[in-house]
């Protein structure tokens, strides 16, 4: 084993690879004439619901930001080129990018289509971490024509913060000894894991920077944020022992989809139609992942952008669109305040893999299943004989293409390689 100042005996070396304005960069690689021009990828350029998903650095100079409504982006930057997303392209580029990472180590944890962690602790033969990072960055740039930033640090949190420090095409090393001058001066809102709401709360305690958080008595934080307060403080002090987990890809916490209505509505029938459609989408994605859900969440955004989410915990797992829809519409009837609705979302949570789920039969309806007893027994016997369920494929066509805007679905492709 090679011990050097780069590879400490008791420590890890973690990379966070972050693609720079990924969707826009992919479009530029595809059509080089776009290079150097302000470009935005937006939901639906024709309709008013168009929102900037991502934009090139040239567009950002004009103040164009992610999630900004399209009309506003156009006002800031009249020459803005707007394109619709081409998910197939991004999916392919993402796959290629992760392949390059996989040439360095197998210990890769993709977190979304355009970023991932790598544990290079045992890669000393391939060179020093900055050399490896530079090689990755060069290959991604030369082979895919895509820019990326890489953070190098002893853990995931610091690596993530580091990759954010220099963009595009940056390589930043963040050591524990650099905390007080590189990390602590940053405003608290820039800390990974601190959202808008948490930042607001912390500011009430006069915590303005990451350093303020690091040096605050932990009890204050626990009182304010519970256990998360302690966790965040540890991170601020450079403590984070989460492993880079290649299998984490399969731990999805929820499957959901939402849609902005073409027009604000108070029409019950339209709401029903939309919820039914969303439920079908969620069902399809649950099926392709072979999971069932025990909680359904409904999101209603009103015309004034006020948003409520309400969920219902169920006693049994469900998998069908009809069941999802029934819960969603029940939640809607309970919580809708009669004000025009702009956006609706349906999310299935508390997921479990089908193979782990069981269904408690009910005294008043078991006969439905009892009738199929012979069939189940036959499947059981064949499963025993062949070691797997020979019928399983029939009910779950894995190759079926499911259209989705859910970023993490990309990760499945990576796993299937």
């Amino acid at each position, binding site marked *: 084993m090679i011990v050097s100042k780069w590879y400490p005996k008791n420590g890890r070396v973690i990379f966070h690879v972050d693609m720079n304005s990924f969707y826009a960069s992919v479009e530029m690689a595809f059509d080089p004439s776009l290079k150097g021009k302000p470009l935005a990828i937006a939901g639906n350029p024709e309709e008013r619901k168009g929102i900037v998903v991502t934009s090139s650095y040239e567009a950002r100079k004009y103040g164009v930001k992610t999630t900004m409504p399209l009309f506003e982006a156009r006002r800031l930057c009249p020459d803005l080129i707007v394109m619709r997303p081409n998910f197939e392209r991004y999916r392919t580029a993402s796959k290629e990018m992760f392949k390059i990472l996989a040439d360095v180590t197998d210990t890769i944890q993709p977190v979304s289509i355009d970023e991932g962690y790598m544990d290079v602790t045992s890669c000393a033969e391939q060179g020093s971490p900055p050399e490896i990072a530079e090689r990755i960055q060069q290959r991604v740039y030369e082979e895919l024509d895509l820019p990326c930033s890489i953070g190098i640090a002893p853990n995931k949190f610091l690596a993530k913060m580091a990759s954010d420090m220099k963009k595009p095409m940056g390589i930043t090393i963040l050591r524990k000894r650099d905390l007080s001058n590189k990390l602590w001066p940053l405003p608290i809102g820039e800390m990974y894991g601190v959202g808008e709401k948490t930042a607001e709360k912390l500011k009430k305690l006069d915590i303005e920077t990451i350093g303020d958080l690091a040096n605050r008595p932990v009890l204050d934080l626990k009182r304010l944020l519970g256990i998360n307060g302690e966790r965040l403080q540890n991170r601020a002090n450079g403590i984070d022992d989460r492993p880079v987990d290649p299998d984490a890809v399969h731990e999805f916490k929820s499957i959901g989809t939402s849609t902005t209505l073409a027009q604000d509505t108070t029409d019950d029938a339209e709401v029903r139609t939309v919820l039914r459609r969303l439920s079908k989408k969620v069902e399809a994605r649950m099926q392709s992942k072979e999971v*069932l859900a025990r909680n359904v969440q409904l999101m209603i955004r009103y015309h004034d952008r006020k948003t409520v989410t309400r969920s219902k915990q169920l*006693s049994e797992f469900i998998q069908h669109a009809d069941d999802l829809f029934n819960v969603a519409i029940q939640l809607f009837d309970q919580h809708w305040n009669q004000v025009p609705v702009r956006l609706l979302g349906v999310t299935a949570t508390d997921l*479990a*893999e*089908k*193979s*782990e*789920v*069981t*269904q*408690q*039969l*009910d*005294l*008043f309806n*078991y006969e439905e*299943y*009892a009738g*199929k*007893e012979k069939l*189940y*027994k036959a499947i*059981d016997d064949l499963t025993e004989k062949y070691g797997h369920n020979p019928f399983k494929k029939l009910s779950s066509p894995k190759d079926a293409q499911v259209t989705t805007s859910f970023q993490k679905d990309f990760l499945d492709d990576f796993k299937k390689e």
Partner: protein
Amino acid sequence: MKFIIQRDQLIESVQNVMKAISSRTTIPILTGMKIEASEEGIKLTGSDSDISIESFIPQEEDGIVYVEHIEPGSIVLQAKYFPDIVRKLPQKTVEIESDNNRNVTIRSGNAEFHLNGQDPEEYPQLPQLHTEDSFELPIDLLKNLIRQTVFAVSTSETRPILTGVHVKMEDGELEFIATDSHRLASRKIPLEQPEGKALPSVVIPGKSLTELNKILDDSEDTIEVSVTENQVLFRTKHLYFLSRLLDGNYPETSRLIPEQSKTIVKIDAKELLQSVDRASLLAKENRNNVVRLITKENNHLEITGNSPEVGNVVEEVLASDVDGEDLKISFSAKYMMDALKAVDYDQVKVEFTGAMRPFLIRPVDDDQILQLILPVRTY
């Protein structure tokens, strides 16, 4: 009103009555406890309008004096503070006194509490039950009937009627039945019916029976049960326990109990219980802890528990007898354990009719107790 009372007697009565008092009630005065003193003794009353409990402490009983210096009267006290005060008083006796302005003084030793009382006239009158539909049974037996069934009531309000225990009297038998639709518990006892009269069958809220069971001490004394259209009254010498009944039709359950079986297992209840308990150890938190039972050669059963992320457990148990078709079945470990505990016999008979059909657990030679469980289907 004024009296001096033995503290231990008072504590017990207060605790019993507290079972009916809820801090969340729509009628403010019901957050209080009514105290009535008469020459005969002290009566405490609590109610949440679903359940009402009266507990009586006689002035004297069997030559033992419990209450002295009685000046009759009544008052309503805040139940939030009263029990703790009584429990923590320093001496064996307690003096309670209220004046005309409803100021209440509680004295014991050197401790003296002053509480503001409320007007007893505002406290609702408990309904007086006028019915001839009543029967008596030993308290022990009633407690058993409750214990063996009430755990199976539904905790979900989706079918409110299932949150109660169905009590019916037919053909000289009294039967308690409870089901949450995933399992069913039933216990029968022979009961002599009043001449020429059929008692109505009723559904008593499971919560009422659970509280009643806590209050009643094991005893061979009898308890009188009286039934009207919408209320049931349990009465002992010093206790008056009134509960509302659940409205609606209880589903017909007798036809749901299979009459034939394909696989019959006779086994030591404790051994089965312990092995199911072990097999459920690996079940993940808040998931149904499902165990699988497979019949094997030579009267052996294989009990397994499997939790993909944690590990698995396999155990072979020797039954006294396994008769009939081979079987593989999955069921909730909790339901099985609840049922075996409720049956409370050394040897039990488990009768299966198929992997997707309800199965029965009964004592080997006692038809009065029956537990039924619906299996679990694995995907």
